[in-house]
């Protein structure tokens, strides 16, 4: 049974993630007054990439992308099976670090810049991610997602500040403007595809698929804040995820990329203010 569940997660997650990316592209296009591609376009892209010739600059750098994918899948499994949220965060960090190392391993100027920026993004959002885990533990006395989503009150009631912080760093996680330094969806503000410059064919397809998983992971974090033991709350949680995703698309289309200094400072300040105040207030009541 567990094996079946895991297989289902591995197969269904990227399908939903890919569909979301497709929807994202359509909505973005409508906002810019274009018609946009069909919703299944991300899948066509990836299938096409698999048929292309994969060239590389050295034999090592593709290795990191595959490992990264494996650990991101691992994270997805932990999260969707209701495992320990901190452990999931650590596994995800491991996956992201392999992705960064892949950029370094090519020793190409553009990917190295991308890697540095990706690393900077991680440094910017990591405190908030950890505080999310801490906050949920405070609110629901457990690190396990399956226990967090089976309490009687949704976590958002206790953690409004932390939730806003999550929405703030979601921009990093979904690689949306204004915080898309390492790898952008928008050609006009990118330094030659950043961290993925030297990847092509299959490897590039793998990076896309990894991103689909990551999208689901990010939205799962939103979901946890709303779900409780009553079945109706799960519908609210899904609506909340949809709204959060929509909000990120709007933000993506209404801001240009900012400088990294601003991103780092603002994220740390938002984390420090919202996260700390929320936790300190919560610690008085709990």
């Amino acid at each position, binding site marked *: 049974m567990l094996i079946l569940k895991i297989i289902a997660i591995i197969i269904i997650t990227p399908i939903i993630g890919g569909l979301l990316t497709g929807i994202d592209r359509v909505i973005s296009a409508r906002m810019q007054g274009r018609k946009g591609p069909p919703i299944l376009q991300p899948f066509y892209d990836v299938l096409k990439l698999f048929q292309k010739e994969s060239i590389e600059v050295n034999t090592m750098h593709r290795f990191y992308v595959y490992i990264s994918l494996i650990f991101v899948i691992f994270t997805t499994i932990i999260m969707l099976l209701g495992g320990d949220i901190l452990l999931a965060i650590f596994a995800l960090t491991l996956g992201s670090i392999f992705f960064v190392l892949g950029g*370094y391993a*090519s020793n190409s100027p553009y990917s190295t810049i991308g890697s540095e920026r990706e690393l900077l993004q991680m440094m910017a959002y990591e405190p908030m991610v950890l505080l999310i885990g801490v906050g949920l533990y405070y609110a629901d006395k457990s690190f396990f997602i399956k226990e967090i989503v089976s309490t009687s009150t949704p976590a958002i009631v206790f953690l409004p500040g932390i939730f806003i912080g999550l929405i703030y760093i979601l921009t990093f996680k979904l690689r949306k403007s204004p915080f898309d330094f390492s790898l952008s969806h928008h050609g006009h503000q990118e330094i030659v595809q950043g961290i993925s410059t*030297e990847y092509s064919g299959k490897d590039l397809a793998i990076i896309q698929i990894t991103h689909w998983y990551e999208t689901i992971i990010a939205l799962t974090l939103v979901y946890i804040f709303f779900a409780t033991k009553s079945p109706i709350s799960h519908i609210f949680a899904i609506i909340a995820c949809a709204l959060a995703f929509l909000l990120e698309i709007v933000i993506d289309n209404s801001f240009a990329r900012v400088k990294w200094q601003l991103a780092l400072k603002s994220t740390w300040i938002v984390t*420090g203010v919202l996260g700390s105040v929320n936790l300190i207030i919560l610690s008085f009541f709990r």
Partner: protein
Amino acid sequence: MNLILMLILFPLVASGIIFIVRNDRIRNIIVKVCACITGALSLLVVCQYFQHGISLSFNSEKVIDYVIMAIEVVIAIYIIFVSMKSKKYIVTFFAAIQTPLIIWFEFTQSSGIEEVHSSIVFDKLSAIMVLIVGIIGSLICIYAVGYMRWYHVHHDNYEERKSFFYAILFLFLSAMFGLVLSNNLIWIYFCWELTTFCSYLLIGYTKTQEAMNNSFRALAINLGGGLAFAVAIVFIGINLKTLELSVLIGMEPGILVLIPVFLLSIAALTKSAQLPFSSWLIGAMVAPTPSSALLHSATMVKAGVYLIIRLSPLLGQTSVGKIVTLIGGITFLVSSLIAITKSDAKAILAYSTIANLGLIVTCASIGTQESLWAAILLVIFHSISKSLLFLSVGSIEHQLGSRNVEDMDILMHVSRKLSLYMIIGIAGMFLAPFGMLISKWVAMKAFIDSKNILIVIILAYGSAATLFYWTKWMGKLVSNANVKKLSKHTFHIDEELPIFLQAVFVVVSCFSFPLISRYALVPYLSALFGVKTLIPIGTSDVNIMLIMLSMLLVLPISFIHLYKNDKRRIVPIYMAGENTGDNETFHGAVGVDRKVELSNWYMENYFGSKKLSFWSDLAAIIILFVGIILLIGGLAR
């Protein structure tokens, strides 16, 4: 003779023999043999006494005390003499006060004090410390043989004093064994001062002006801590009528107990290089690498945190504990941030040591079962990983002629093995599923459970900074930069064997931490708190961690097959179409070919050490003063 005594005395004898022997080859063999025996002895002691522990008392205690006193006087006179000569009067001042103070105390005030029942106590915590000192320490000694062979070839301007160097390494081990096994405060104090003195001699090894200055700084700061220790002993002896550490720990934390505990904590903070006393450890990196490895991993700084861990039952909920916790937290955060700005490998390692010690101090001073569990595991994992990193950096410096992280991008070409060891060491310092992360995880849980929100937030930011500086170093190690000409050195077996073994330890310790927890930490903590301790991480999580670790080990091997079936075309890297074809230069403006230089980010403007360390030192000093005022005002609880 008792095995434990042999463990303490053997390195001492070895030190003497090594000092006398002047023939290089014979001495090298003696060093290696003695190191092996020391390691074996520590294993033997642990096997023998691990299950039930043991406490020893001696009939000839007075005689030993007099011998100790005589040696202390000799060392004090020596220190006073050299410090006067070098015009370091602060050192003179500290040395001239504390030794007479202790002698005065022993001769005139010792009448009403209860006799020491057990001078040596061996429990599970001592067992862990003995293993760390014995095994990591002796591996470093073996490495030193290989390292020093090249050291004087590369640095021919320094006077060669290898006998002296090896002798001090062993003396250091002996002092550390004494320190972690003694229960008599006078003996602990003696070993404490001995480690201070050894570190002074090691840091000053090269006798350059910089080395002399740094060694005197280390001496001044640690003697200051020693003075606090001495005053604490006098205070404890006169007011509490005991000289046993275990008796002190068993007392109720009233004001009379808290004052000496505060003094002892100050001594521990100086030794563990916490703010505002951290500058000596940064200066200590002028010493040859084996001695840095010894100072940073197995000995010296671990003595400080060991004392804090011992004192933790008295720190827990008291105001002294809160102060120590805050200082540890600030140290962790600030040192992690400063480490971002450093490109010298040894400086990064030094700041990371200070940061991790800060974390250990924080965990230990919170004093709950969970936090102590995390603290002791941190000590174990940090010792192994940090020692591996220092030794690797030492060998890399021989291979590349530089220890700048920016120059390590060619390391994959120069020595794949060394890169791999280095990556394992770095992964051990911060990545899931490796040791340090497991401990950090539990530390985080312990901070939340004990309601230290501020420390939780500090840990979150500090971890982010930690991730940044380690990953960018790793990035340099995996980047396959080309190398044209480089004189290759042989990577000598004396260097490689200890590094290899420690890399194995890093991995094995991660697999075996549930066992360490079950057989050492849980019994120790249960006995200490009188309540059954549970392992703070659930079994399902431990299993997932172990699966991750196995994946990391197996995946690279499984890729070999994939690689064989999927050969690809190799193309030059993208440089906007201007790559000249060798991946190193590009066609620049006006037809000149320019070299590509890739550098990491250091963000000096944000986390520069000057700015940060001034404010953080100030903050730490204020916190300490608040502590003093609380104690003097009798407000401390």
